[in-house]
């Protein structure tokens, strides 16, 4: 079992609002690994849109991502892509 951890910064100006949250959840759900986000001490399941929305991460905030499971590396790579693209926004 692999456990990976990385920190990302929210770069799009509107932050992790509803549409990006849906995108994150869709991505996380493609993998078997557990994916969790943590921000300001609050940890949530990234496969739950309700959870991701409660983070309400604004532009510039840091989110710690952990992936745990057999496909953790692939999951982390996919999540990284989503963050780095600014959720397809600016």
């Amino acid at each position, binding site marked *: 079992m692999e456990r990976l951890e990385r920190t990302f910064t929210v770069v799009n100006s509107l932050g992790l609002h509803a*549409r990006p*949250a849906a995108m994150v959840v869709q991505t996380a759900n493609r993998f078997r690994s557990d994916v969790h986000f943590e921000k300001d001490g609050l940890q949530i*399941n990234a496969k*739950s849109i309700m959870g991701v929305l409660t983070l*309400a991460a*604004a532009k*510039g*905030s840091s989110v710690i991502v952990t992936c745990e499971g057999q496909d953790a590396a692939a999951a982390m790579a996919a999540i990284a892509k989503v963050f780095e693209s600014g959720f397809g926004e*600016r």
Partner: protein
Amino acid sequence: MASTTLQGLPASPGIAVGRCWTVDRRRVRTPRRNIAAEEVEAELHRLESAIELSVRQLDGVRAKIQGAEGAEHLAIIEVHRAMLRDPSLVDESRRLVREEQINVEWAVKRTIRKIKGAFDPDDEFFRERRSDVDYVGERIVKNLLGHGVDVAETPPPGSIVVARDLSPADTALLFHDRKVAGLVTDAGGITSHTAIVARALEIPAVVGAGRASASVERGDWVVVDGGRGVVVVNPSAGERADYEAARIRQMEREAELARLKDLPAETVDGVRLRMVGNIEFGEEVPGLLSHGGEGVGLYRTEFLFMGRDELPTEEDHYRDYRAILEAMGGRPVTVRTFDLGGDKLPSGQKDHSENPALGLRAVRYCLRHPELFHAQLRAAVRAAAHGNLRLMFPMVSGVAEVRAAKWMLAEAFEEVVAQGIPARMPPVGIMVELPSAAVVADRLAQEVDFLSIGTNDLIQYTIGVDRQNKDVAYLYKPLHLAVLRMLKSITDAARAAGKSVSMCGEMAGEPLYTLVLLGLGLDELSMNGPSIPLVKRVIRSASAREGRELLDRILGLNTADDIERTVRSEMTRRFPGLLEGSASVGPVSG
């Protein structure tokens, strides 16, 4: 029948007159009962089927609106779809059915309430998400009970939709083909999804209209005045005619301004100005272009700092500038280096000095923090390789500061080039917003490629008045003789040096001043996008000569009040109806 007027919230401007089409969205009562142990499996199975049906319904909505003006709708439908499958909803509902042996409708209802508890009702963003969770829960419960969920009928073209409330799915289904003329809801705020969609589709809408849906029946005449938030049910023949006439006037006005979009801002005697926009975020670019913006005259980069804990990196800047340059497609984009300091500082820092307006701000702050400035300048020269970038330093007080800033720019450029990174040296300008700079504008013009007059600060510093201070705000007069003389000496200096001069303060976007600005001979006016069409209309029907004549005339007057009166009466005489709605003499920001 007497007419009824209801006041709601102005959600989307415009006037619509049409027949009412009510959409019934009665809430369902959630049945509650305890179940026997042997019923549990059957209940769980019902839940699974209801969720599956709900997902299929949303897929259906998505398929229907696909390709239309769907982007806005699709995003929220995706969110609802993700919510339907959310473990916190599904697992908790299942747990309640199993452990507390309650029927599944009740379990869903309780779970929804619990999820909503995590969303702060006082926060606008979370308020919207709470209503999303409600819509999702309602959908599941209605499907469990076999009720219809989404609007099934299509209203006739030109209808005014009146509803207690609309789900995002309803909104998508009703409006995607743009055949509905107007919208009224009893509930909702101006930031609700329905209101946002109405604005995006330019459908006049009033939300939060209280008991609107209870006051109408299908087929009643309804007037929606979305700009004022007014709904008139069963208007008299006279009222209907008045609103109809107002609607037509408004459409003509819009059509006229829209026709102006692609026409040049050129006076009848052939003087051509460039109409550009002030922006803070890349998201403003489409709006600016839609109003006929020919470039960005002021991009306020300090907003990159707002709401974040760390300083933006060179990459942050570079990505940001490049995206704006590309979105502007070769049009000029004037990037103003950080106007930080005073009341604007990166989070965690505060200026405790006695007098921040006269303190370490803008280019002074940048020269004191070279590491921060260097990153921005590197990003600017790199981004300049991808478009028409111009660079501008704010709050310059004299020649030495320009030279210091230019020296740092040259250093950043050489460093980037030496690293083999594509770069271009952009044209360089300064903001003229301090009286000192205005007085030595002739010398400053020798140092740079362009001048840009920041009237807000120039007026404050010239008259020595803080316009936020209500005791002295009355002294803030854009047409003070000292301000006019200063503007004239700046524009004369630029012309003599053969350099272009623009204006990017609020004064530039206020049509009352347009003729005076024509008289000054500005090359470029930078304002908020929505102000462009009206100012352009004045320019296109005026001559630079009459502007110069008006300027000469007011330079001979003594008090700001006399000058203002003269300008106002001249503008009213020349452009009847133009100043309607711009209530006060002061500049209008938007």
